[in-house]
């Protein structure tokens, strides 16, 4: 059975992601850009689902949208944004920004044109039944050392955050 209208979902989700991505940059109020970012993250989670990566989509929603964006909103609340809004939004180097974005765009278009023949046209079916199980076996077997070191990374993050945030330690 051929899935009903996947291309529609792809265009819908990528449109959502790209528009909210641009909104993140252009909005004056940091809260608005934070919300736009959350929408972009959710759109991206949908794209992961389309690429047969349900576990990663789940983690994206829980961790990114749920964790990091909460942190962002907390910090935005902490910093009074009235003064921030009155200040001029774009600093002077917007020419540099445009040039850099164009350069990157040209690079990606070049890569895309050259690499066209490289990729199979359609995305092969992948049994996403045991996706998480597959990742689990990989994560706790082949990448075991990276997993242990990640705990150390979290420890450093805790220390760093508390040391910098508290007034007097």
């Amino acid at each position, binding site marked *: 059975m051929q899935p009903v209208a996947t291309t529609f979902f792809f265009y819908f989700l990528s449109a959502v992601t790209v528009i909210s991505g641009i909104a993140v940059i252009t909005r004056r109020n940091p809260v608005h850009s934070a919300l736009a970012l959350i929408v972009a993250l959710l759109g991206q989670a949908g794209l992961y689902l389309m690429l047969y990566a349900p576990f990663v989509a789940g983690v994206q929603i829980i961790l990114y949208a749920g964790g990091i964006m909460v942190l962002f909103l907390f910090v935005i609340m902490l910093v009074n944004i009235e003064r921030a809004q009155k200040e001029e939004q774009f600093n002077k180097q917007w020419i540099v920004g445009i040039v850099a974005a164009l350069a990157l765009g040209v*690079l990606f278009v070049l890569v895309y044109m050259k690499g066209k023949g*490289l990729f199979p046209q359609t995305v092969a079916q992948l049994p996403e039944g045991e996706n998480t199980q597959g990742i689990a076996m990989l994560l706790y077997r082949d*990448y*075991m*050392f*990276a997993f242990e*070191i990640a705990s*150390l990374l979290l420890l450093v993050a805790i220390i760093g955050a508390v*040391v910098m945030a508290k007034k007097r330690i």
Partner: protein
Amino acid sequence: MSASATPLAVEYVRILPELVLSIFGMAVMVLDPLIDERRNQRTLGNIALLGSLAAIIATLYQSQYPGPGFWNMVNVDAFSVFFHFLVTTVTAIVILTSYDYMEVQQIRAGEYYGLILFGAVGMCLMSSAVELVLIFIALEISSISTYILAGFRRRAAISSEASLKYFLLGSFATAFFLYGVALMFGATGSTSISVISQVLRSGQIPVLAYAGIALMFVGLGFKVAAAPFHIWTPDVYEGAPSPVVGFMSTAPKAAVFAVLLRIMFEANAPGRLWLIWVTAALSMTLGNIGALVQDNVKRLLAYSSIAHAGYLLVAFAALPSGGIPAAMFYTASYAAMNVGAFAVVSHFASAGERYVTLEDYSGLGRRSPLLAATLTIFLLSLIGIPITGGFFAKFYVFSAALQANLVGLVIIGVLNSAIGAYYYLRIIVMMYMREPREEAPVPAAPIGLRAALTLTVFATIYLGILPGGVLEYASRSAAELMRQ
């Protein structure tokens, strides 16, 4: 290496230094709130020092069991043992210098030592990891710990500003590095360097690999402060506490260069010559010109570290047989002289890092002759005067480049090191040939600093007089690296 479920006992030995460092780091961290106020600094410092010495011993012990570990994530060979030894010794020296820096600046924090040890774990791991995932996480650990360490002088506004700038540009660079890894993964289908090098050596190199390498180089270029991405270095080196700058300018730079060596040479990265040629020439010239106009010693040393990153990159442009040992020798000798120089700077700066400008250094030859003499030795080594390690480092790099007949690059390098002599000389002139501005004698060097300085001076002079041994070891590890 076991295909079975659990790794063999010998594989735990292959990550022994990292284990020792993290255990000691955690011990220091947990003990900090438990011990009472006053004695806390000294005891934590001692524990941290003990940890780094234990790590050095662990490295030596580990060097007898070369081979891959943990499903080919980590590979211990002469190359990684060299960098392990370098990083752990630099950590030990930095801990020695920051004993008294802490008391003088009244920064009361046990986490300082914990973060240095955790940073050292990240850097050691970077040199022995052969899997891009592990390299990425190790890079992150070392960067995050250096971001926090950079902002440790909490009362000074420029310190938190320095850590902010370092953080923003650092994570920007990590994103580029990641995008490079993604494209490399797309081109070769795996993230382990040995598989990548097989794919790249075998068939026609996919076009994605070129873009991947370029982006990875951009990302790592930020971390190593090579030219087009060096804007953050002067500000961060000025704002951060001096021992941290000594740590930041040598250990992570050496580890990132180890990763670059593996990626560029072991993975036989395609089309790398013009990329490195441009970056090396740019960073040498910008570093030197920038340093000419500085009057703050820390900013001056920041620009000089950009210039030295340029000299190091010259070794990358050379052939692997000559280039790798030259680069390894350069990181070792640069680490010795730079840590020493910043140790002396941290002592002269005294409370609140007041005396940092060139004028404050006038007449130092008279006020504290011993420290001024050691700083002169480090500066002479940075210039590249024969009996010091700096000379042989530049010598090997330039002769390696000459063998790959990159004559243009060598000429730029030679000219730059000539210009470089001028701004190092200004400090020596200030110290010896100017009258001291205020007569207050500089406090005598405490035990910790004295030990650190003797170590670094010995290393600089040893590399200057008998460099044969170290270079021999480096070329053996280079041969090993290239055989895979």
